[in-house]
């Protein structure tokens, strides 16, 4: 490969005079445009929308009732009647995958919502007040982060009892420390800014400062982290279900379908292939989107 070819394909250009736009584009608009240029991220976004549509329209799209067992159709391979085959109780796998999108998407989104809520509040308290409060919160967060995530989630899920809701709470609480740390770091960065000082000097309450000044400025990395966290939350739900702690039968979730399917990998591999593929596609989509958002919202890159 000639070096000149490589040179031209490198995006490293010598310093050029800045082209001045007459219309100043705001940072959000800029980010959105940048995201639009990232085709992979768009593909990810479309995939996510596809799954959301699938989940919402499940009652209308699904060919069969996901709970309808049929003793005569047990573990049948994919056919015209059952595109994805049937499972160990004769239920249509395609229908269960479609309905399972609800559980998996819910698991991802609700868990992260819980993490965000807990993480942002605690992180802001730690970052804003500093001192002893920060010290204690930081040490406790470190302690949480030092324990293997899955063990925390398992212990919490076992404590709460196996169910999808409890799995979401368990994952949400276990993942919160990451958001605490992120929020705190951002708050520490931002709190030295002038406008915060200004707000404080005119007597704004900490709450007011937090909501109207801190929050908008720390949102970008939180958005990125949340998207990536949804990806790992979906996998975490699948992992907990694999251990019997997530969504319980007969309601479908991709993770619990995989858990049941693991016993039938040889004689009914379709039971594992489709939910596994679904998890893979959804999680990959969130990861790619998150990656794209990170690039888009990164103030340093243009």
């Amino acid at each position, binding site marked *: 490969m000639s070096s000149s070819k490589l040179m031209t394909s490198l995006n490293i250009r010598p310093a050029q005079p800045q082209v001045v736009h007459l219309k100043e584009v705001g940072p959000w608009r800029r980010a959105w445009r940048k995201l639009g240029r990232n085709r992979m991220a768009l593909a990810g976004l479309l995939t996510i929308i596809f799954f959301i549509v699938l989940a919402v329209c499940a009652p209308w799209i699904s060919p069969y009732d996901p709970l309808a*067992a049929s*003793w005569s159709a*047990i*573990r049948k391979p994919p056919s015209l009647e059952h595109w994805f085959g049937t499972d*160990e*109780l*004769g239920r249509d796998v395609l229908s269960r995958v479609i309905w399972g999108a609800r559980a998996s998407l819910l698991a991802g989104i609700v868990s992260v919502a819980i993490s965000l809520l807990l993480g942002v509040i605690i992180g802001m308290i730690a970052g804003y007040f500093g001192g002893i409060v920060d010290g204690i919160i930081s040490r406790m967060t470190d302690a949480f982060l030092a324990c293997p995530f899955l063990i925390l989630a398992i212990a919490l899920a*076992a404590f709460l*009892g*196996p*169910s999808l809701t409890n799995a979401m709470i368990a994952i949400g609480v276990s993942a919160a420390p990451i958001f605490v740390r992120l929020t705190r770091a951002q708050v520490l960065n931002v709190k030295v800014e002038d406008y915060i000082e200004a707000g404080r000097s005119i007597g704004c309450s900490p709450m007011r400062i937090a909501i109207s000044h801190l929050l908008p400025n720390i949102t970008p990395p939180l958005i990125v982290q949340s998207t990536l966290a949804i990806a790992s939350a979906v996998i975490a739900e699948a992992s907990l279900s694999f*251990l*019997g*702690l997530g969504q*319980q*039968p*007969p309601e479908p979730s991709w993770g619990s379908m995989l858990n*049941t399917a*693991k*016993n*039938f*990998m*040889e*004689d*009914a591999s379709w039971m594992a292939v489709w939910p596994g593929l679904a998890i893979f596609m959804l999680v990959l989509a969130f990861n790619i989107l998150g990656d794209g958002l990170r690039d888009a919202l990164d103030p340093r890159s243009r």
Partner: protein
Amino acid sequence: MKPGIRKALSVMLVTLIPVLSSAQVLRVGLAEDPDLLDPTQARTFVGRIVFSALCDKLVDIDEKLNIVPQLATSYEWAADSKSITFKLRDGVTFHDGEKFDAAAAKYNIERHKNLKGSNRSGELKPITSVDVIDPLTIRLNLNAPFAPLLAALADRAGMMVSPKAAEALGDKFAATPVCSGPFKFVERIAQDRIVFEKFTNYWNKDAIHFNRVIYTPIPDATVRLANLRAGQLDFIERAGSNDFASIKKDPKLKSSKITEIGYQGITINIDKSDRAKQNPLGKEAKVREAFELSLDRQGIVQVAMDGQATVGNQWVPPSNTYYAKNAPIPKRDVARAKALLKEAGVTNPSFTLVTPTTSDAQKIAQVVQVMAKEAGFEVKIQSTEFATSLNMADKGDYEAYVLAWSGRADPDGNIYSFAGCKQPLNYTGYCKSETDALLNESRSSLVPAERVKTFEKIAAELVKERPIIYLFHRDWLWAYTNKLGGVKEIPDGLLRMTGLKFN
């Protein structure tokens, strides 16, 4: 013979010998990692598989559940049935070279009864004292006749460890057990392997054809079978029921299908706690009868167990001598179930079925849910981790519970603790003095025909209340390399090493 050929032959022999001797290692795949390797304190089923190679017991059972000699060559009950005399085998030594004699046997029985942390004391409760008659004869004195005694002595409660080692090692005994079986302990790495080596002074050493046994716990049934197929294991226990068809078709594998001595059933809270009275299933015997009639046992076996089980409705399988013929398996009858519910004045009864997160229990619960719905039952499945479910059952914090029992050779082991008033495994709360009297009677008679009659009466009593709905008796599914022969198919599901060899 030409010298060249002789040399070639001897070279061949020399290279074959390692092959031959390495072929004398048996690699067994277990479904779980055993717990302590001390027969007095052991608590798991899987541990018993390992013990059958490590520790000999006074007596053993055969394929028909008859008592056969092992360390005891014969036994005789006294006329009043309150004591039993055992003649012990001569020339038996423990793995450390100590002699097995009456004193050693007495030490072991007392250890099983008295050691702190013993799990055997309940099994040997009726034994009040042990007398050494002569070096090869002991007498166990009981406070009352106790028919299940021999079955208990055919299991861990009859296992004999070296007294010298037990004293010397104290509570570290389980780490390096010294016992009396065909193999002695070499090493154990938790969750990785347990290695035994042939005990050269074993009294029955001619029947032992392996130099080493290596037990590997592989909890995932698919992976366990994959190991067997890949040639890394020679034998696996508890193969998945859905894998059985393909195992049978595989020319490189052989298999065994043995009906267990235990059962799988649904335990119902009829009086264990207040929760029983708040639930139609726990309150009314008619509702329970309707529930049982809504179930198609064969269907459950077919769907949930791929046909690898035998339907039953008692604590012993229908083929068992002590199965009560006066209480046959009811056929599914949804119409009658609905009629019974009407009679009981109950409409759309609903209850929660506590289901451990094991694959079998989950399948059973889902099939039961669908079947019972046809008779009008609304079954809510509450999946619970096994540890939690056990505690819930013990406290009576449940309505119905999918629970299995691994089974004991004597029917008493399958019913006494479960149906007797306030017994440790009685999660139903069932308590009837008539049944208690019958249960005690069944243990105190040594005549099988009499016991059969007593069990028939017990069955008749239990049918009135139906505290446990027995569904079926699972099949132990073993898969092994086709090189393996001499596999004894004993209903307790434990692999015996005597007679086992590579063909």
